[in-house]
Protein backbone atom coordinates (compact mmCIF):
# COMPACT_ATOMS: atom_id res chain seq x y z
CA UNK A 1 0.00 0.00 0.00
CA UNK A 2 2.75 2.37 0.99
CA UNK A 3 4.61 1.50 -2.18
CA UNK A 4 1.52 2.12 -4.26
CA UNK A 5 0.92 5.52 -2.63
CA UNK A 6 4.50 6.52 -3.23
CA UNK A 7 4.24 5.60 -6.89
CA UNK A 8 0.98 7.50 -7.18
CA UNK A 9 2.55 10.55 -5.54
CA UNK A 10 5.55 10.31 -7.83
CA UNK A 11 3.27 10.08 -10.85
CA UNK A 12 1.23 13.06 -9.76
CA UNK A 13 4.38 15.14 -9.27
CA UNK A 14 5.63 14.22 -12.72
CA UNK A 15 2.34 14.99 -14.44
CA UNK A 16 2.04 18.32 -12.62
CA UNK A 17 5.57 19.31 -13.47
CA UNK A 18 4.89 18.53 -17.13
CA UNK A 19 1.67 20.46 -17.40
CA UNK A 20 3.14 23.69 -16.01
CA UNK A 21 5.83 24.03 -18.67
CA UNK A 22 3.97 25.33 -21.71
CA UNK A 23 5.35 24.98 -25.19
CA UNK A 24 7.00 28.04 -26.69
CA UNK A 25 4.98 29.74 -29.46
CA UNK A 26 6.42 30.17 -32.95
CA UNK A 27 7.94 33.57 -33.55
CA UNK A 28 7.96 35.66 -36.72
CA UNK A 29 11.72 36.15 -36.60
CA UNK A 30 13.56 32.93 -35.96
CA UNK A 31 17.06 33.10 -34.57
CA UNK A 32 18.76 29.73 -34.80
CA UNK A 33 21.97 29.33 -32.81
CA UNK A 34 23.68 25.96 -33.27
CA UNK A 35 26.68 24.64 -31.34
CA UNK A 36 29.13 22.80 -33.60
CA UNK A 37 28.84 19.49 -31.70
CA UNK A 38 25.69 17.46 -32.38
CA UNK A 39 25.22 16.62 -28.69
CA UNK A 40 26.09 20.19 -27.56
CA UNK A 41 28.76 18.70 -25.30
CA UNK A 42 32.48 19.50 -25.15
CA UNK A 43 35.46 18.55 -23.05
CA UNK A 44 36.78 21.24 -20.74
CA UNK A 45 39.40 23.24 -22.65
CA UNK A 46 37.86 22.32 -26.00
CA UNK A 47 36.62 25.28 -28.11
CA UNK A 48 32.93 25.69 -28.92
CA UNK A 49 31.70 27.58 -31.99
CA UNK A 50 28.15 28.72 -32.63
CA UNK A 51 26.57 29.10 -36.07
CA UNK A 52 23.89 31.78 -36.24
CA UNK A 53 21.07 32.02 -38.77
CA UNK A 54 18.23 34.55 -38.68
CA UNK A 55 15.03 33.99 -40.66
CA UNK A 56 12.14 36.29 -41.55
CA UNK A 57 9.24 34.58 -43.34
CA UNK A 58 11.61 31.59 -43.35
CA UNK A 59 14.17 33.33 -45.59
CA UNK A 60 17.45 34.81 -44.32
CA UNK A 61 17.09 38.30 -42.83
CA UNK A 62 19.52 40.91 -44.22
CA UNK A 63 20.80 44.36 -43.28
CA UNK A 64 19.59 44.20 -39.71
CA UNK A 65 21.93 44.30 -36.76
CA UNK A 66 22.27 41.20 -34.57
CA UNK A 67 23.61 41.60 -31.04
CA UNK A 68 25.34 38.73 -29.30
CA UNK A 69 26.60 37.88 -25.84
CA UNK A 70 28.69 34.85 -24.88
CA UNK A 71 29.62 33.79 -21.37
CA UNK A 72 29.27 31.18 -18.62
CA UNK A 73 25.62 30.51 -17.82
CA UNK A 74 24.06 33.07 -15.44
CA UNK A 75 27.29 35.12 -15.32
CA UNK A 76 28.29 38.39 -16.98
CA UNK A 77 29.12 37.83 -20.67
CA UNK A 78 32.81 37.67 -21.53
CA UNK A 79 32.16 38.60 -25.15
CA UNK A 80 29.62 41.18 -26.30
CA UNK A 81 29.34 42.69 -29.78
CA UNK A 82 27.10 43.10 -32.80
CA UNK A 83 27.20 42.13 -36.46
CA UNK A 84 25.27 43.29 -39.55
CA UNK A 85 23.32 40.40 -41.03
CA UNK A 86 24.40 39.57 -44.59
CA UNK A 87 21.85 36.86 -45.27
CA UNK A 88 24.47 34.14 -44.80
CA UNK A 89 25.01 32.11 -41.63
CA UNK A 90 27.86 33.41 -39.47
CA UNK A 91 30.05 31.72 -36.90
CA UNK A 92 30.77 33.03 -33.42
CA UNK A 93 33.80 31.70 -31.59
CA UNK A 94 32.59 30.84 -28.13
CA UNK A 95 35.90 29.95 -26.53
CA UNK A 96 35.93 27.34 -23.80
CA UNK A 97 35.50 26.63 -20.10
CA UNK A 98 38.33 25.30 -17.96
CA UNK A 99 36.02 23.61 -15.44
CA UNK A 100 32.73 21.66 -15.89
CA UNK A 101 29.77 23.92 -16.64
CA UNK A 102 27.80 25.63 -19.39
CA UNK A 103 28.68 28.36 -21.88
CA UNK A 104 25.77 30.32 -23.35
CA UNK A 105 25.52 32.30 -26.58
CA UNK A 106 22.52 34.65 -26.85
CA UNK A 107 21.73 36.46 -30.11
CA UNK A 108 19.08 39.16 -30.39
CA UNK A 109 17.58 41.22 -33.19
CA UNK A 110 15.33 44.28 -33.00
CA UNK A 111 12.81 44.24 -35.81
CA UNK A 112 9.68 46.39 -36.27
CA UNK A 113 9.46 47.29 -32.62
CA UNK A 114 10.00 43.79 -31.27
CA UNK A 115 13.07 42.20 -29.75
CA UNK A 116 13.67 38.59 -30.75
CA UNK A 117 16.13 36.26 -29.06
CA UNK A 118 17.77 32.99 -29.88
CA UNK A 119 20.29 31.05 -27.85
CA UNK A 120 22.38 27.93 -27.53
CA UNK A 121 24.28 26.57 -24.56
CA UNK A 122 27.35 24.37 -24.78
CA UNK A 123 27.93 21.90 -21.96
CA UNK A 124 31.50 21.22 -20.80
CA UNK A 125 31.81 17.82 -19.06
CA UNK A 126 28.35 18.27 -17.53
CA UNK A 127 28.44 14.87 -15.83
CA UNK A 128 31.30 16.19 -13.67
CA UNK A 129 29.38 19.22 -12.34
CA UNK A 130 29.33 19.18 -8.55
CA UNK A 131 26.99 21.00 -6.17
CA UNK A 132 28.29 23.99 -4.21
CA UNK A 133 26.53 23.18 -0.93
CA UNK A 134 27.39 20.35 1.44
CA UNK A 135 24.90 18.08 3.15
CA UNK A 136 24.68 19.01 6.85
CA UNK A 137 24.96 16.09 9.30
CA UNK A 138 21.44 16.76 10.62
CA UNK A 139 19.90 17.21 7.18
CA UNK A 140 17.62 14.15 7.35
CA UNK A 141 16.35 14.80 10.87
CA UNK A 142 15.80 18.49 10.24
CA UNK A 143 13.97 18.05 6.99
CA UNK A 144 12.06 15.06 8.46
CA UNK A 145 12.53 13.24 5.23
CA UNK A 146 10.52 10.04 4.94
CA UNK A 147 12.71 7.37 3.41
CA UNK A 148 11.46 4.00 2.28
CA UNK A 149 14.08 1.33 2.24
Amino acid at each position, binding site marked *: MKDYLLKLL*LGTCLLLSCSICAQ*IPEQMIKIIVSPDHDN*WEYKTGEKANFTVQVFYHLNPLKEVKAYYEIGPEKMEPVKKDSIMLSGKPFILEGGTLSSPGFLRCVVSVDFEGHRYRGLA*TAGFNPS*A*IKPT*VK*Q*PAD*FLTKTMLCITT
Partner: protein
Amino acid sequence: MYHNIKEKLETIPYYDVVNFARELKVPGVYTWGFNDETCPPTSMYAAYNLISAPRILNLALETGHWVFPEQNAKMQNWLIEVLTK
Protein backbone atom coordinates in the same frame (compact mmCIF):
# COMPACT_ATOMS: atom_id res chain seq x y z
CA MET B 1 27.15 40.49 -1.75
CA TYR B 2 23.73 40.76 -0.15
CA HIS B 3 23.19 36.98 0.05
CA ASN B 4 26.73 36.11 0.98
CA ILE B 5 26.20 36.09 4.74
CA LYS B 6 26.92 33.28 7.20
CA GLU B 7 23.30 32.60 8.26
CA LYS B 8 22.05 32.34 4.68
CA LEU B 9 24.92 30.12 3.57
CA GLU B 10 24.25 27.80 6.53
CA THR B 11 20.52 27.64 5.73
CA ILE B 12 20.55 26.93 1.98
CA PRO B 13 21.77 23.29 2.26
CA TYR B 14 18.40 22.47 3.89
CA TYR B 15 16.56 23.77 0.82
CA ASP B 16 18.93 23.10 -2.07
CA VAL B 17 17.44 20.30 -4.15
CA VAL B 18 20.84 18.55 -4.41
CA ASN B 19 20.56 17.31 -0.84
CA PHE B 20 17.15 15.81 -1.51
CA ALA B 21 18.44 14.28 -4.77
CA ARG B 22 21.11 12.41 -2.77
CA GLU B 23 18.36 10.64 -0.79
CA LEU B 24 16.26 9.47 -3.72
CA LYS B 25 15.49 5.73 -3.62
CA VAL B 26 12.83 5.50 -6.35
CA PRO B 27 13.51 5.23 -10.08
CA GLY B 28 12.95 8.37 -12.10
CA VAL B 29 12.94 9.89 -15.54
CA TYR B 30 14.44 13.33 -15.96
CA THR B 31 14.17 15.67 -18.91
CA TRP B 32 15.52 19.14 -19.62
CA GLY B 33 17.18 21.33 -22.21
CA PHE B 34 20.46 23.21 -22.22
CA ASN B 35 18.70 26.53 -22.99
CA ASP B 36 16.62 26.69 -19.82
CA GLU B 37 17.13 30.15 -18.35
CA THR B 38 14.86 29.54 -15.34
CA CYS B 39 16.15 26.17 -14.09
CA PRO B 40 19.73 26.30 -15.38
CA PRO B 41 21.28 23.04 -16.64
CA THR B 42 24.30 23.67 -14.39
CA SER B 43 22.12 23.18 -11.31
CA MET B 44 20.09 20.36 -12.93
CA TYR B 45 23.29 18.38 -13.50
CA ALA B 46 24.60 19.21 -10.02
CA ALA B 47 21.50 17.46 -8.62
CA TYR B 48 21.19 14.70 -11.22
CA ASN B 49 24.85 13.67 -10.90
CA LEU B 50 24.24 12.79 -7.23
CA ILE B 51 21.26 10.51 -7.79
CA SER B 52 22.12 6.89 -6.97
CA ALA B 53 18.59 5.56 -7.64
CA PRO B 54 17.84 4.21 -11.14
CA ARG B 55 17.66 7.20 -13.46
CA ILE B 56 16.96 7.93 -17.09
CA LEU B 57 17.87 11.27 -18.66
CA ASN B 58 16.05 12.42 -21.79
CA LEU B 59 17.77 15.52 -23.08
CA ALA B 60 15.87 17.86 -25.36
CA LEU B 61 18.86 20.12 -25.96
CA GLU B 62 17.26 23.19 -27.53
CA THR B 63 14.40 23.51 -25.05
CA GLY B 64 14.28 26.40 -22.61
CA HIS B 65 11.83 26.39 -19.69
CA TRP B 66 9.29 24.44 -21.74
CA VAL B 67 8.88 20.93 -23.10
CA PHE B 68 8.19 19.25 -26.43
CA PRO B 69 5.14 16.94 -26.54
CA GLU B 70 7.61 14.10 -27.27
CA GLN B 71 9.21 14.60 -23.86
CA ASN B 72 5.82 14.32 -22.13
CA ALA B 73 4.97 11.23 -24.17
CA LYS B 74 8.21 9.49 -23.15
CA MET B 75 7.59 10.39 -19.52
CA GLN B 76 4.02 9.08 -19.56
CA ASN B 77 4.95 5.87 -21.37
CA TRP B 78 7.60 5.18 -18.76
CA LEU B 79 5.17 5.92 -15.94
CA ILE B 80 2.54 3.56 -17.35
CA GLU B 81 5.22 0.90 -17.83
CA VAL B 82 6.41 0.98 -14.22
CA LEU B 83 2.92 1.31 -12.74
CA THR B 84 1.58 -1.69 -14.64
CA LYS B 85 4.56 -3.95 -13.99
